[in-house]
Structures are given as C-alpha cells and as structure tokens.
C-alpha cells in the first residue's frame, strides 16, 4: 500500500500537457514559467533540436534518390504523398501503415509523432484572424457563435507574436490585421510588378507573406538559442539555426530553462482518468508505444495539445459513468464540424521580360493576397472567402525535361537562369458542418488496442462554389499584370486533410448544450481539462490557423493558473 502511494506521488505533477507540438510547447512554456511543475507527454520518439536534423546539412548528391521518394516508402507514407514529403523530410512524417485510420470519405491525416510534432512541418505562414472571422458564424447562423471576439485575443496575439518572431510588412488592412513584425522579406521584380498592377487595376492589395522566420533576431530569440534565417529554404528537413519557429527550437527550450519541465516520450495517452466524486480529471492513463506498458500520471490540471484529431479522440476514449460517450461530450459535438482549408487550386503563368532581374538566396516564404471576396461591398453567391500564397521565380535546369533539344549547347543553356514563372495558390475557408466528422471505429483497433479513427468528411457546395472564383480571380490578377499563358488549375486530388489545418471537433461555445469548450478552452463539464489546439476552433477563417492556436493556448494557460491559485479548479 505504502509503495503505491509513493509511486503515485512520484508520478504526480502540477500539470500534464499532452503533446509537444505547436500548442503543447506553448502550454509547457506558459505553465512552467508561471511556476508549475509540468509533465509533457509525447506519443512519439525523442527528436533533439539540431543534432537529430539528420538531413539538414546534406548536399543534393548525398541523397540516393535526389529528393524523390521510393515507391515502397511512398506506400508507407501515403497520406503525405501529394506535396509534403521529400527524401530529406520524410523522416519527420509518421508512417501511415503503422498508424492506420479509416477513410469513409477521403481524408489525408498527416502526422508527425516525435518531439515538436507538426511544428517542424508547418508552412510558417502566420496571420491574425480578423474581427469578422469571430462574428461570421453568428451573423450567418452557421455552427455556433464564437464565445470570444478579436479583442479578447489582441493582447495574446501581441504576446505570442513577439516570442515567435514573424517577418512581414504592416499594411493597416482590416481584413488582415497586422502583427508585431520583424523586417519583411524582399519581393522579386515581377512580384513587385504584380503588386502594382493588381492594386491599380483591381484595387486588391498584395503583401509579402508573413512568416515565422527570424529576419532580425531579438534578445529573447537568441536567449533560447535561435539565430537568423540563412535563406536556404531547407526548412522541411528541420532548421539547425532555429530560424523558423517550432516548439523544439523555441517554446520547449524556454520551458526547460525553468527547470520545471519533464518530458516523457513514447507515451500514447489512452484516456483521461476521471475522479467520479469531484467530477474532475485526476490524471491520464498512458500506453508506452514500444513496450505497451500501461502507466498513470496525475495532475491537478490537464492540457490537451495532441493535435485536433489526437486531442478529441482522447476525450472520446475517456468514457465513464458520468461521460458514457466521451469526456465532456454532453452536447454530442465531439468529433463534429471537422474543418480544414481547401487548396490545390489557383492559377499560374509564364512571365516575359525581366530578363535582367534575378535574386540571391532561397526565400522560405511567398507573397500573400488577402481575402477580397465577400468583404466590404463585395457579395458572392457563397459564404466566406479565400486568400492566395505564391510567387515568381526563375525556372531552373529541370525545365530542360520538357524543352526540345539535347547536347552541348543544351547542357550549357541549363546552367543559365531560365524564364520567370509565377503561381498563385488559393486557400479557402471551409464551413463548419456537423456531418463532417470523425468517430472511433467500433471494431478496428491499432496495435496499441486503441480504436482507429474513422473520417467521414468532405467539402460541400459552398466550398465548390468558392473554388470557381479562386481559379478565375487568380487568373484575372495574373492577366492584369500582363503575364502570358495564364492557366487556371484545379487539382482533383484536393480533399479534406491535405491542408494539414484540421480544425473543430471539440468546439468552443457559450452553451454547454451545443459546444464542448467554454471561452477559456475549458471543457464545460470538467473544468480542469483544457483543449487549446485546433480542436477548439468554432470556424476556420481562410488564413493559416497556428498563430490563433498559440494565442488561445497562452490565454488559456494564464487563466488556468489564475484559477488554480484561486482554488477554483
């Protein structure tokens, strides 16, 4: 008996954070900095910043397949094969065969099971949501109203932006509120021409992409060991300079500096353990991914930051007499309103001229064209909007494959910069829809005995109607700049999951009858459990979501510690 009590005590922390990625890192940083002893549980293996970025410094010829993925490996990583993984970055993506899931309708579930999670894979485009994003559901009677407004997040956006380090240009646009910026990255000559043409002819602003790369590191960046961007654009292999923001390079080192952080790896959280009498969580039950050993950890406070599908599925798996359908699922909203951004659509063109213009360095970012549809006086026959990312660059030697010719002259020509090309790729908002969902399989389990996820979601009429404009408007802007051979495109491969912006499934809301989380990301019916990753999102906006997850996490952590101190949790 005594032994058990001692063992329990050794496994007891002030707070448990599930997941070490984008939001888990923030929860760990905020909670440790506020004095709590924090345990981070990571389901994957330990990946060490810098030393485990094993491909980061490799030259092209050191890759056996020169960047291409062998077919056998591709079949093991099928979810990522559309665009994300290359030979140098594949090791950061999880193996789909070992981590199977079920697609009732097509869904690519792209995962990164190691320290840092998907914060090592993200595109790093970083935008604030605007005022309307938090009002749209209420105005249009869709989903539920957000329990917070833009003003609630302003101080938290300010707070996280400074620590993250975002390069960008202030524009004063209501549709795309400015952040606290480090110096912007440069535009190329044809990009500046596009910006001017589109402003003059179509009255649409274009800005340089706002990306989480250090263009001028500040003391608080260097204090955790981060350095300036080297413009290699090899980010997808992991950045040994810590120049792009990841939890591994930034928030976890900050948490570690407090000496109050413990990270346990290979720990798959099976369920949250409920204290039936107190109606509160008292800890989590964990399966070791290698040994299958089951352990328990205890804490007064639990933050779920396992990624949208991960966090929600843990709630679903946490069944008890009080919560027979999953912890906090009184509303039957767990797993519903699964959202993503829809992409793989836009326009591209050839650019004549600008032969004397070139650029030095590989820019890890692009242009950004903020939403202009259904904004101001513009009214469309669909709801919400979309933005574009893209840019112009000069074709390299690979153009030779589709050009006529071979031999000595051809060989020499391929060593010269090729003609300019441009691409604008649209990112569209997906509406919340309770029938877009995932649930737990009743009979299919993974090798850890946990039910497999069944995805049942697709784009709807609104998204399909929006796609026509994404193509046409992209083409229109390229034509406004006088570019040639403008080709609008819609890649039929587009479906849910490819955006890697999974959102919803444990939404925030004012009413416990229709939502899972309250305005502080607290489970309505179990106050010491917070969910602050993409699960919490009530709608999807059309801009990249990570910054908003981070702001929500820092805000929730601050509130949670206040409540702990006031003994209200």
């Amino acid at each position: 008996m005594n032994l058990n009590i001692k063992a329990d005590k050794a496994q007891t922390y002030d707070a448990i954070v599930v997941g070490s990625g984008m939001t888990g890192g923030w929860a760990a940083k905020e909670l440790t900095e506020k004095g709590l002893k924090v345990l981070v549980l990571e389901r994957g293996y330990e990946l060490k910043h810098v030393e485990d970025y094993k491909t980061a410094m490799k030259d092209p010829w050191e890759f056996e397949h020169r960047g291409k993925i062998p077919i056998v490996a591709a079949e093991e990583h099928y979810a990522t094969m559309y665009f994300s993984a290359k030979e140098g970055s594949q090791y950061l993506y999880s193996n789909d065969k070992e981590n199977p899931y079920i697609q009732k309708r097509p869904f690519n579930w792209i995962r990164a099971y190691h320290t840092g999670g998907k914060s090592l894979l993200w595109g790093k485009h970083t935008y604030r949501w605007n005022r309307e994003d938090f009002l749209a559901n209420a105005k249009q009677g869709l989903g539920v109203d957000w329990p917070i407004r833009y003003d609630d997040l302003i101080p938290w956006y300010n707070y996280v932006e400074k620590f993250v380090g975002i390069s960008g240009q202030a524009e004063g646009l209501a549709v795309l509120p400015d952040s606290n910026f480090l110096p912007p990255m440069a535009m190329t000559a044809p990009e500046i021409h596009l910006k001017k043409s589109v402003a003059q002819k179509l009255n649409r602003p274009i800005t340089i992409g706002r990306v989480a790369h250090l263009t001028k590191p500040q003391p608080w960046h260097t204090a955790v060991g981060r350095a300036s961007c080297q413009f290699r654009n090899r980010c997808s292999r992991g950045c040994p300079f810590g120049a792009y923001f990841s939890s591994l390079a930034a928030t976890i080192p900050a948490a570690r500096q407090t000496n109050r952080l413990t990270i346990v790896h290979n720990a798959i959280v099976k369920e949250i353990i409920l204290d039936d009498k107190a109606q509160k969580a008292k800890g989590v039950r964990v399966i070791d991914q290698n040994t299958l050993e089951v352990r328990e950890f205890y804490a007064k406070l639990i933050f779920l930051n396992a990624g949208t599908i991960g966090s929600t599925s843990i709630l679903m798996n946490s069944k008890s007499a009080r919560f027979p359908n999953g912890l906090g699922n009184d509303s039957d909203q767990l797993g519903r309103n699964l959202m993503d951004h829809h992409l793989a659509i836009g326009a591209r063109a050839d650019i004549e001229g600008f032969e004397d213009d070139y650029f030095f360095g590989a820019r890890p970012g692009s242009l950004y064209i903020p939403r202009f549809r259904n904004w101001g006086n513009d009214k469309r026959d669909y709801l919400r909007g979309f933005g574009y990312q893209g840019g112009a660059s000069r074709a390299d030697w690979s153009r030779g494959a589709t050009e006529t010719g071979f031999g000595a002259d051809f060989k020499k020509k391929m060593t010269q910069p090729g003609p300019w090309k441009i691409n604008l790729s649209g990112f569209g908002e997906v509406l919340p829809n309770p029938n877009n969902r995932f649930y737990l399989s009743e009979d299919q389990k993974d090798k850890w005995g946990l039910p497999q996820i069944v995805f049942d979601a697709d784009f709807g009429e609104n998204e399909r109607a929006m796609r026509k404009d994404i193509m046409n408007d992209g083409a229109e802007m390229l034509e406004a700049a006088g570019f040639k051979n403008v080709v609008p495109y819609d890649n039929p491969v587009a479906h849910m999951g490819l955006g890697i912006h999974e959102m919803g499934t444990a939404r925030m809301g004012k009413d416990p009858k229709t939502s899972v989380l309250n305005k502080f990301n607290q489970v309505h019916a179990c106050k010491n459990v917070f969910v602050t990753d993409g699960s919490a999102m009530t709608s999807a906006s059309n801009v990249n979501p990570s910054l908003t997850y981070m702001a929500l996490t820092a805000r929730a952590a601050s509130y949670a510690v206040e409540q702990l101190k006031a003994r209200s949790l």
Partner: protein
Amino acid sequence: MNRREAVTHVAWILGGVFSAPTLQAMNRWEQIGSQATALRQSGSFLTETQHEIMARVAELIIPRTDTPGAIDAGVPDFMEVMLRDCYRKPAQDTFLAGVGALEQKGFLKLSADQQTALLKQVEAEAQKTSDSSFWLITKELTLLGYYTSEVGVKASFDYQPIPGRFEAIKIKPGQKDFMYGNQA
C-alpha cells in the same frame, strides 16, 4: 505477413479505397518478390547492353565538354536505381520498350551522328503525345542525375548551400544559375 499481405490488410482496413497506381505498385512488389534472387545477383534493372545504350544516350544528352558529362557524373547507374525504386511498372515497361527499340536498331553500332539523328526522331515522336514516354523519363533522369550530382553542380552552377540573405539583384552577363540544394 509478407508485404503484399500487409498492404492488402491495410487496403481492407481502408475500405478498399486504394488507387490504381497503388495496386500497380503492389503487382510490382510481387514481381520483384518472385525475381528477388535474379535481381540481387545482377544488381541491375537493365541488361549489360541496355545499360550501355542508356549510358550512351545520357552522354548524348549531357556530353562531356569543357565540363564533365553524364557518364562522369554517374548518371547511368543513377538511372537504374531510380527506375528500380521510384517508378511504377507501367513507366518501367514504357522505358524498357524504348531501350528495346534502340537495341533492335543496333544503336551502339551507329555513328555518333546517326545516334543523334535517331534520338531526334525519338524526341519528335515523344512530343506528339502527352503521356509519359521513354524519352521524357530518360531526359528527366539524365538531367536530375547530372545537375544534382557533385561534379554536375560544381561545374554548372553557383552553388550556395548557405546564402545567408535574400535580395533582388540584377543579372550579370553570362551569369550561372544559383543552386541552393533545397530540392530534396
């Protein structure tokens, strides 16, 4: 459980939603499985003659000039690795049919001019179709193999593994393309 069983099992879990290309890949694994010994013994995808033909074709595409050529850069062996590992059976078959056609025409016995003329014909034929052709595969692999090899990169480009900055600049006369090695 062998590989095909494993894949079939996953396909079944996924509700039979595997695509045609995946199924083709599974057939290819089966084939490799049955030929495993032979493949390992020869260590190659092509016969010796076919390998020689491809070496010659690659060298005609990227010849040795004042800088190294395709053979210097190891392109022929690279092509074999790529065809074996990164191409599905239909593309492999297309490729093998193309090499076979050159073999039948006694490609290696032709003069350099005749070889060039024949490849120009092959190229012209390939341009009539939008499908992947022997010529497109060969040219893609030759360019990839050469312009990402150590000798190819160093001889052809201004290689900048750590540029340190990004800026718009004006081009200089005869300027070589910058290469950043970020394609992998």
